[in-house]
C-alpha cells in the first residue's frame, strides 16, 4: 500500500505532461481547419466575381455592344459607342459588383479580377481586346 501511494503522484504528473502535446495537436488542427474554411470562402468569392466578369464580357461581345445591320447581330464585332457609362452601370447593378470596368482600353486602376475578350472594332475590323474588370 505504501509503495502504490509513492507512485500515485508520478502517474498524475505523467498524465499532465501528456496533455501538452495533445493540446498542441488540437490547437494546430483547429488552426488548419480555420485556414481551410477561410481559404474556401475566399476562393468561392473570387470564383463568383470571375464568373460574373466572364458573363458580362460574353454578353457584351455577343449581344450587348455588337454591330447590328439589317436585323442581324455580329458577335465579336464591337460597336464601342454602345459601351456608355449607363450601359456599364446597368450591368454593374445587375451583377451586384461594387466596381465594373468595360472598355477596349486597358484599365488604369487596379481591379481584383480582370478578363479580356478578342474582338474586332470599326469598319476596318481592327483586332483589339475588350477588357472587363471588377470586384
Amino acid at each position: 500500500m505504501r509503495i502504490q501511494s509513492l507512485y500515485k503522484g508520478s502517474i498524475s504528473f505523467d498524465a499532465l505532461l501528456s496533455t501538452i502535446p495533445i493540446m498542441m495537436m488540437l490547437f494546430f488542427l483547429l488552426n488548419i481547419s480555420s485556414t481551410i474554411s477561410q481559404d474556401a470562402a475566399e476562393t468561392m468569392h473570387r470564383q463568383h466575381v470571375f464568373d460574373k466578369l466572364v458573363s458580362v464580357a460574353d454578353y457584351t461581345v455577343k449581344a450587348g455592344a455588337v454591330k447590328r445591320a439589317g436585323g442581324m447581330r455580329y458577335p465579336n464585332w464591337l460597336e464601342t459607342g454602345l459601351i456608355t457609362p449607363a450601359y456599364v452601370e446597368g450591368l454593374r447593378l445587375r451583377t451586384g459588383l461594387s466596381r465594373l470596368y468595360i472598355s477596349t482600353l486597358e484599365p488604369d486602376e487596379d481591379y481584383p479580377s480582370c478578363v479580356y475578350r478578342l474582338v474586332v472594332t470599326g469598319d476596318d475590323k481592327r483586332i483589339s481586346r475588350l477588357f472587363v474588370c471588377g470586384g
Partner: protein
Amino acid sequence: MQTFEALVSFLFFVFLSSYLLGLTEEQRHVDDSLYRIQLAEDAWRVLYLRGSFEDFGPNKRAQLEEELDTIEEETALCVFIDGVFMTSCRGGSQEHQLTASLRKTVLYDGEPRNVTFSIGS
C-alpha cells in the same frame, strides 16, 4: 520503444498536416475552363470576321499567318490550326501548352477539311 512510438505519431501528424495544407492549395485555383473556350471561339470568330477563311488555300496562308501574328501580339496567345499546319508561334523547339481546342471545318482549296483550332501559350 517510446522513442519509436513518438516518431510514428510525429510522422503521422506531419503527413496529416501536409495533406490538409495540400488540400487548401488545390482549392485556391479558380476554374477558367469556360473562359478559355470562349477565348478560342473569339480567335476563330475574329479570323472569320476578317475574311481569313474566304477562298482559303495555299495562296492565302500568308494572309492568315499575318492575322495569327496580330492575335499573338494583342493577346500573347499562340494559335494553332492543326490540319492545315499553321501557327502563330513558329520555329524553335519550344514546348507549347494548349489551353483550349475546338473542332472546326474549313474549305481549304475548295475541299472541306476538319481542323483543330487551339490556343495556348
